[in-house]
């Protein structure tokens, strides 16, 4: 298809596998840090892996009301988020599959996953599923413009929506040179919290169905489907973290391919992502869940900060 | 061709054209029986139509006919009038046989009234035919005055309250208007006599003579005279501030007569106005009379637009739409471009055809539903499929929907409005047309569609009433896209006359 060598394709696949595999580790780390900051011991950092394996082996209970959409959603969710992982450069400056899709495609894939999750929520004919979908609808309606504005800002500064171009140009210019990017950083952070259902927006670990957003939609899942849903949620979170890290803290990306360089790059990547994860977990413990209709002000803040980023570019 | 007194081919035709209605009127007064009256009227109007067509072919090749040393003078402008009068006259006679026959059976109209109706009908045709034929403006004025008197008699046919009121108002306003017109005519005569030293009083009143020495008239006199003519003939033609008699007269008269009134009589009055427009545009240039025509046209369009929405009675609504169309015709003549005048003259024929169809179909509908009010008639397409369809086509045509003929002439008129540079006037015309489209459409839809109020047995009224409507609808469809060749050349010659004053061409 294009001019990359077989080795690069191998490395590309490695990058994607890295994201897919390490995603549950990050979830484990965040739970650990949250527990520690609440003076609890909390479960081990590899607990999510055990959960997934356990769930995969369990039988599945499916509601008699639901249709094929309910059973297909976990697969669609996983496929979309996992294939989005292929386009994200992790330790290489460019991702060999960058030509195939750009950041808009990643956003589109997330939207496809979210679309089917909402439908699955409605499919089980319980009011909790409907509750979750309607709230998810509200938040996604507000997050979309914020997300596109941030992408617009990043595309302005780094000349393009192709993720490899963004990362390579980010790699050359240091963050201080381009002040506008700071505003994009704030906006992207808020969007990341909203997209992955972190605390100010949605409390993932609650048991009271009335306060759930994301959990309410996946309430009915069990066994393999629940595992897939959890895993794809983790991958999505991992992708957002990697994007955040690649664009705003683009240190020591591997230009020329060498075994030492790559392994060192992977380690630096893991350190960076886990640092970001612990920072978000720390933020989560410090903030309480906001009332649903005050959340829109937070996202409006994200939109305005990205608009300021745009104006900064034109000054 | 020696234009002496001796009867040449065309002079016989013109004389017989005028005499046929008079003879049939006399015959009717003699034999009182219904069957005979109806047949004589149909035959006479058929004869008029045939003679009219022959005259048309004569005028097409010879451009002008003048008989009896200039008292009768026909050119293509008057040929258009004759064609409209004879065509609408013939179809109305067919329709009135069915319409009046039905009223006769229902004892609304007794034998004496029926005779008076047909006498009036024939005399009406005679007086209207006299207008385009006469060259002497005095005779033309008398002919128009006679049409008023005859039509008052016809409106007075029913003895109910409304018709008395309508005929009284019509008589009063029309006579006042026409006396104004006579003032104007005498002013022109005076202007003609003041200038012309070799002045012979016999030919002083002739239109041809006046057009020839028009450039030498005194400008002040011509302006004064044209204003009197404009207000006078404007009243008869139903132009705006003087149109107040029109809705009452047309809604109270029997349907065939209001078809004749709306379709043809307004055009005769406008024909008179047009003749004087030619004279005044020759003497003091067209701007003066053009601006006046545009102003009156726009006002009548405005008033018609204002009142159609609130109408409760079908025939009053149709009468106001005649005011609207006369307004468009006068405005487009006022635009003064070849295309505009061509469109206006074409619109005279189109409007006559469509308005007659509408009056016929609304006549049969109000006969079937026994009411003229719009609110009570609905679901016509269900109870009277054929008449309902005709009424729908007529309604859509009158508001200017494209596949029909009115759109063609309105297209020409509005493009002349733009190319002649008065954008404000054309914008106003488009605005008013849209308002009328909305209000007329509302009433039309309410009447044609929906489901009929009381249970009524389906069925149209009589073969004779359907025949004229079918002819009219076919004319509407044909003229929508293709205007026949001879008619095209006729209207082009008439437009040249209006622009150039074609006495000498």
């Amino acid at each position, binding site marked *: 298809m294009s001019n990359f060598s077989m080795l690069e394709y191998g490395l590309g696949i490695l990058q994607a596998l890295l994201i897919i595999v390490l995603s549950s580790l990050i979830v484990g780390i965040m739970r650990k840090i949250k527990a520690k900051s609440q003076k609890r011991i909390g479960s081990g950092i590899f607990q999510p892996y055990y959960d997934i394996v356990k769930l995969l082996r*369990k039988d599945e209970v499916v509601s008699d009301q639901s249709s094929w959409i309910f059973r297909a959603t976990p697969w669609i969710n996983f496929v979309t988020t996992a294939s989005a992982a292929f386009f994200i450069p992790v330790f290489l400056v460019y991702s060999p599959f960058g*030509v195939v899709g750009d950041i808009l495609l990643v956003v589109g894939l997330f939207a496809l996953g979210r679309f089917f999750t909402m439908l699955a929520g409605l499919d089980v004919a319980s009011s909790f599923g*409907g509750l979750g*979908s309607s709230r998810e609808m509200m938040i996604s309606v507000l997050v979309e413009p914020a997300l596109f504005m941030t992408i617009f800002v990043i595309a302005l500064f780094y000349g393009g929506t192709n993720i490899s171009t963004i990362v390579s140009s980010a790699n050359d210019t240091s963050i201080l040179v381009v002040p506008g990017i700071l505003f994009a950083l704030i906006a992207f952070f808020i969007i990341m919290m909203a997209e992955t259902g972190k605390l100010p927006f949605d409390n993932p670990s609650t048991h009271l169905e009335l306060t759930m957003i994301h959990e309410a939609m996946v309430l009915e899942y069990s066994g393999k489907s629940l595992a897939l849903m959890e895993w794809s949620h983790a991958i999505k979170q991992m992708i957002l973290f990697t994007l955040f890290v690649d664009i705003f803290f683009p240190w020591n990306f591997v230009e020329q391919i060498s075994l030492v360089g790559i392994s060192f790059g992977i380690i630096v990547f893991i350190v960076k992502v886990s640092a970001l994860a612990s920072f978000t977990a720390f933020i989560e413990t410090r903030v309480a869940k906001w009332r649903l209709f005050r959340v829109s002000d937070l996202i409006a803040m994200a939109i305005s900060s990205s608009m300021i980023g745009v104006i900064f570019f034109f000054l | 061709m020696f234009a002496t007194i001796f009867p040449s081919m065309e002079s016989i035709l013109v004389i017989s054209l005028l005499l046929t209605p008079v003879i049939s009127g006399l015959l009717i007064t003699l034999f009182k029986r219904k069957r005979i009256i109806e047949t004589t009227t149909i035959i006479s109007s058929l004869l008029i139509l045939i003679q009219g067509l022959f005259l048309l072919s004569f005028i097409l090749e010879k451009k002008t006919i003048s008989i009896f040393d200039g008292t009768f003078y026909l050119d293509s402008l008057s040929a258009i009038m004759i064609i409209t009068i004879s065509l609408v006259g013939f179809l109305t006679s067919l329709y009135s046989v069915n319409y009046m026959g039905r009223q006769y059976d229902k004892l609304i109209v007794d034998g004496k009234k029926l005779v008076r109706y047909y006498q009036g009908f024939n005399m009406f045709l005679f007086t209207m035919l006299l207008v385009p034929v006469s060259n002497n403006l005095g005779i033309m004025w008398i002919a128009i005055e006679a049409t008023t008197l005859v039509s008052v008699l016809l409106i007075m046919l029913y003895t109910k309250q409304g018709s008395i009121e309508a005929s009284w108002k019509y008589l009063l306003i029309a006579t006042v208007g026409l006396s104004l017109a006579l003032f104007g005519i005498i002013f022109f005569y005076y202007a003609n006599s003041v200038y012309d030293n070799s002045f012979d009083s016999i030919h002083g009143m002739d239109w041809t003579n006046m057009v020839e020495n028009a450039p030498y008239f005194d400008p002040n006199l011509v302006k004064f005279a044209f*204003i009197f003519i404009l207000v006078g003939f404007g009243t008869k033609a139903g132009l705006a501030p003087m149109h107040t008699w029109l809705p009452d007269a047309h809604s109270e008269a029997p349907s065939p007569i209001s078809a004749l009134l709306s379709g043809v009589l307004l055009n005769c009055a406008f024909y008179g106005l047009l003749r004087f427009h030619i004279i005044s545009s020759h003497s003091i240039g067209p701007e003066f009379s053009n601006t006046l025509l545009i102003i009156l046209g726009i006002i009548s369009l405005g008033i018609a637009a204002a009142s159609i929405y609130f109408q409760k009675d079908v025939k009053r609504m149709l009468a106001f739409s005649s005011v609207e169309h006369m307004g468009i015709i006068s405005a487009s003549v006022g635009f003064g471009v070849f295309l505009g005048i061509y469109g206006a003259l074409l619109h005279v024929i189109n409007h006559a055809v469509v308005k007659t169809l509408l009056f016929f179909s609304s006549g049969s509908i109000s006969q079937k539903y026994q009411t003229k009010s719009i609110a009570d008639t609905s679901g016509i397409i269900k109870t009277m499929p054929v008449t309902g369809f005709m009424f729908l086509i007529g309604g859509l045509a009158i508001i200017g929907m494209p596949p029909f003929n009115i759109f063609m002439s309105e297209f020409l008129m509005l493009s002349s409005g733009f190319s002649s540079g008065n954008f404000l006037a054309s914008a106003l015309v488009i605005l008013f047309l849209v308002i009328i489209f909305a209000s007329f459409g509302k009433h039309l839809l309410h009447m044609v569609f929906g489901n009929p109020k009381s249970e009524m047995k389906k069925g149209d009224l009589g073969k004779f009433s359907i025949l004229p409507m079918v002819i009219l609808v076919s004319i509407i469809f044909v003229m929508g896209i293709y205007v026949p060749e001879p008619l095209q050349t006729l209207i082009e010659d008439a437009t040249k006359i209006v622009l150039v004053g074609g006495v000498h061409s």
Partner: protein
Amino acid sequence: MSENLFILYIIFAFFSLGVTLGLFTRGQKYHAYFTYIPSIFASFLTIILSVTVFSSEGIHLTFFNIQHLFDFEIFIDGVAAFFLLIIGLISFAVSIYSLSYSKKFDDKKNNSALGMLFNVFIISMILVVISNNVFFFLVFWELMSLTSFFLVIYEHENKNNLKSGLTYLVMTHLGTGFIFASFILMYTQTGSFSFDSFRDVAIIPQYVKDIAFVLAFVGFGTKAGMVPLHTWLPKAHPSAPSNVSALMSAVMLKIAIYGIVRYLFDFNAIDSSPDYVWLGVGIVVIGSISALVGILYALVENDIKRALAFSSIENVGIIFIGLGLSVVFAAFHLLSLSVLAFIASMFHTLNHSIFKGLLFMTAGSIHYSTHTKNIEDLGGLIKKMPWTAMMFLIGSIAIIGLPPLNGFIGEWLTLQSLLAVFQIPSNILQVTLAFAILAFALTIGLAGATFVRLFGITFLSKSRSSKAINAVEVPRLMLIGKAILASSCILLGILPFIGINLIVSAFDLPYTPSSPFETISITNTVDGNFASLLMPGVLIVFISVLVGIFAFVRIIGGKTKTIKYGTWDCGFGNLSEKTQYTATSLAEPIRRIFGIFYKSHNDIDADFYVKENLYLKKSIHVISTTRNIFDEKLYGKVISGSLFVLDKIRKIQSGKVNAYILYIMITLIALLLFVGFGTHE
């Protein structure tokens, strides 16, 4: 050359065959077959004709002229062929669909009238696209509106069909008034009525072209459903029979777009004069407002066809954004970007006609089997009408613009052209167009929410009423009609290059078409690859990941059983359909945020166990209504104001004879004064 013409004649022959058969088979049993089969052949031939015109050159022919003023001439070039393709494709699918759909109207007496008018409607659309003369363009344009009007009021028994039919007819007539004014304005400059004279741009002064374009834009905008003039669309399309509303929404709106494109790129050679910049920005602004308003009202609509009509307004808005951007870029001589924006809008026009036709047909089949359009009492249809549900799902994924299908490409291209705004030199423009991006992004989000709601409530969860319970799958022919469009949706989604090559060759744009497997790449002026997309590649990644995860789950998880059991009901017992979310409650959070638009009002009446204690409610009944601020505020005020004025004028018909004579005297004296002063020189 000649065989194109030959195909054109056969098309007309087939359509007129359909019309005549429609006339004569009134009330017979198989009237549907006689009227719709000719239209199937004819529309298939239209597709072939448009494709042949793409490959060979177009037809330019004059038949006859009337009053040696207007000559009936045809001109089929690339532009016309592209829109012919849209007409052909959609009417082909819809005719197959209506073969069995029209059985719904068999009880009505004039059921063959539907087929007849259907054929006349398509012929008039084709004639509008190919006619090359002002007069005939307007005649066929109004003929199209007239036949679609008759189709809208086909079921004229219920009152509001008539009312919406009338609003539709009056609004289109208003639009035609504007188009007429702009054509005549051009005529005054060029002196001839044919479009060829409008094309040689030299003789027409710039200000005339601008006024003419603005008038034409307003005129065609009314027909396309631009925001301030859109109120007829959500009234007219739903009241028409579904096969007709599919045609109207999918194709008739595109004819209006055709008019604008003709005016924009044929009659105006866009140069760098500032007028074009402001025209372009105006179009973008109107486009984004229409998009936002359209989707906002689609979100809260409970009648499925009205919601789809509102979403047509939104998509027309997106098309306008693309067109406006291409004008702005052309005005700044950024030719490659202008081409990109134009391809984006044309590709979206093609996509929208396909998936909107599909959605209206599915809505029609829902109406066919459940006899209701209100989604509040539907639900659980996916179990009863699986194929229709699948089609509706494909349609909604496409219309939201989610990756695998063609909607995503249209959106992606529009977004790329929006993002390329930063290459425009002037800063103010960049900021205003940034707001356009915000509006567009909000529209995408809202569109997602709308179609989750539409699909979720109608098809998923428990059936809410008896109508939905005994729904049954629609006959096979209707499914085939929908399947055609659904498959073209998927095809264009996977291989977008077919569409893009088509547009490039139709409008002969300077964009290097390449093989379907090439990436759609946009290279920005600065360096490297601005953005690129390769849909087949995405598909391959999908499949490989699916195989990978399937294998992984099978290896780790092993065989597991799935048990069917009731939904989790917190132990309360059997969940009735009352407990699940309704359509209004699903959109309630968003309705609360965008309150100003909806003026939403909930009237709640509850009766209590004990009078004083307001908390223990026996039953509560909430009716929440949203009002369309355009209908009440804008149009209500305008109409009542003008009626007030008209009422004052008509009072002159007061009935008193003396007053009438007084009017004559006053006019006489007024005119004399008007002249009197004139003559004092």
